[in-house]
């Protein structure tokens, strides 16, 4: 029934309109196919060795400029005069430009980010209080996935004006653990125990050497910095195992952690407490 109605409607159209409609449809289908094909060929064959980020940018450039060209071809086929349209677009562009200053700022920031390359897709970054893996870097924003699986979109303008920490930029990192031991401890023994813990942990690198630093005399004990180097992929394995190792080994060696305490002295004078 429906197809019959469509067929009847088509029969009412003039041959000129029909030809034009067919040409528009063909332009759309072939144009979109070419864009898709071009994007695939460039990504898979010409940019095989490029980074994921660069490939994504090139794919978007091809797609967006391709869509514009196809749209222009379709409009020309429909008899719309492009010169007049472009003139109108210019005026509209100025108006839209004023109205979308933030977006323009984001786009320019995006271009700076793409050229500066402070991070790439797959890197783990920290911006403000957000830490996650970069999913995409676009002209307006970057998208990251946090470790508790949240999707966070951060505008490029904000990134450019914030401190960004790229956690996985370099292949190895140092994990700093701050410890406080009780004042009564033999610091030489504490130092040697930490050295053994680092040496025996399978995820800790023996080179660069672990850092063991007596930092400060604190209110309740001596503060130490225990810094262990590790390959960036081993963060969780090291973090979990080293905490257990420190706890077990300190217990075995009878090394006491510092904890807040107050010493109250009672002086007895003439049978009276003061």
């Amino acid at each position, binding site marked *: 029934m429906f197809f019959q109605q469509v067929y009847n409607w088509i029969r009412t159209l003039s041959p000129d309109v029909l030809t034009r409609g067919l040409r528009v449809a063909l332009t759309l289908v072939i144009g979109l196919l070419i864009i898709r094909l071009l994007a695939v060929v460039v990504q898979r064959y010409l940019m095989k060795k490029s980074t994921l980020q660069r490939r994504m940018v090139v794919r978007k450039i091809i797609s967006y400029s391709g869509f514009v060209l196809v749209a222009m071809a379709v409009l020309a086929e429909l008899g719309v005069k492009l010169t007049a349209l472009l003139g109108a677009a210019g005026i509209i562009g100025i108006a839209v430009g004023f109205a979308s200053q933030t977006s323009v700022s984001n786009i320019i920031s995006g271009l700076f980010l793409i050229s500066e390359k402070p991070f790439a897709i797959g890197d783990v970054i920290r911006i403000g209080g957000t830490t996650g893996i970069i999913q995409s870097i676009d002209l307006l924003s970057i998208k990251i996935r946090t470790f508790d699986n949240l999707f966070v979109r951060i505008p490029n303008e904000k990134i450019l004006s914030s401190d960004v920490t790229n956690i996985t930029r*370099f*292949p*190895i990192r140092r994990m700093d653990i701050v410890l406080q031991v009780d004042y009564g401890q033999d610091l030489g023994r504490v130092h040697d125990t930490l050295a053994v813990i680092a040496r025996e942990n399978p995820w800790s*690198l*023996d*080179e*660069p050497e672990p850092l063991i630093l007596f930092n400060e005399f604190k209110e309740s004990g001596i503060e130490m910095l225990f810094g262990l*180097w*590790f*390959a960036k992929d081993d963060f969780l394995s090291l973090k979990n195992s080293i905490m257990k190792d420190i706890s077990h080994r300190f217990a075995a060696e009878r090394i006491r952690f510092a904890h807040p305490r107050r010493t109250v002295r009672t002086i007895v004078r003439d049978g009276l407490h003061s």
Partner: protein
Amino acid sequence: MRKSGIAVWETLDIPERRSAHWRFPLRSIWVERIDTEWHVFSQAEERHVSDASFTLVSRSRKPVSSRWRHYLQRDSGAIQPSPVLPDRPVVMRPDRALTLLPGQSTVFFLEIPVWFRLSTTGTRPTRIFEEPLAVLTRTWFGDPVTGELCWGLATRLHHALDSVSASADRAVCPLMIENDSEIDLEFQKICIHVENLSVFRGRGHLWTNSLHAVFRGPDQVTQIEIVHTPPGFEEHLVPVSEAREPSTGWNIRRTFGVLKYFTDF
């Protein structure tokens, strides 16, 4: 059935109702065939044994554990244990810092712990599993940005083969170094790209390809060359495993640590 020493690396068939048990100084490995699966169990050796051995034991004597690994493979038949070199470069820290004076040359015999690889035999050998026979430390060689992750090993620098004891779990790597420069060649660490080396089996030792390096000074790029023929220190060597990443050599800059002239290290 019992084998010891280098003979533990020979091809074998595991009869029904029997488990194969390899015992190395630091690790024990059990393998058995049940239906279409290889069952594998491995654990650190608690009582250190001096030499490697292989025995076929009754299944009732196999260890009871939930850590048995199962590998599905339809084709049964003979299996081939092979010693393979570790999957990353090995940084060897010699027991003493050594300086090679200008114009001098020397040969070191380095002992590299091997990994255990089990494969099927036949026209299309398939690797079943592989694992280290010794625990090596993780270490970094080079600067924190461009260096590489390696296995670390404290070792003795042997100048003569006589001082290298026969072993089934270590391969001997002959390293010839010539100092053809005007300066002292100091090194405290040697990074051996073992992934480029093959393993050969002799009568008492496992061997790797020989390495040859001529140091011409810190400004000259010097290659470590891999000699692809079996090392000539023992006759009738049999190739037992190929290099993971075949290569002709690598750059000396990636080899010696703490060279005072190589400031980028």
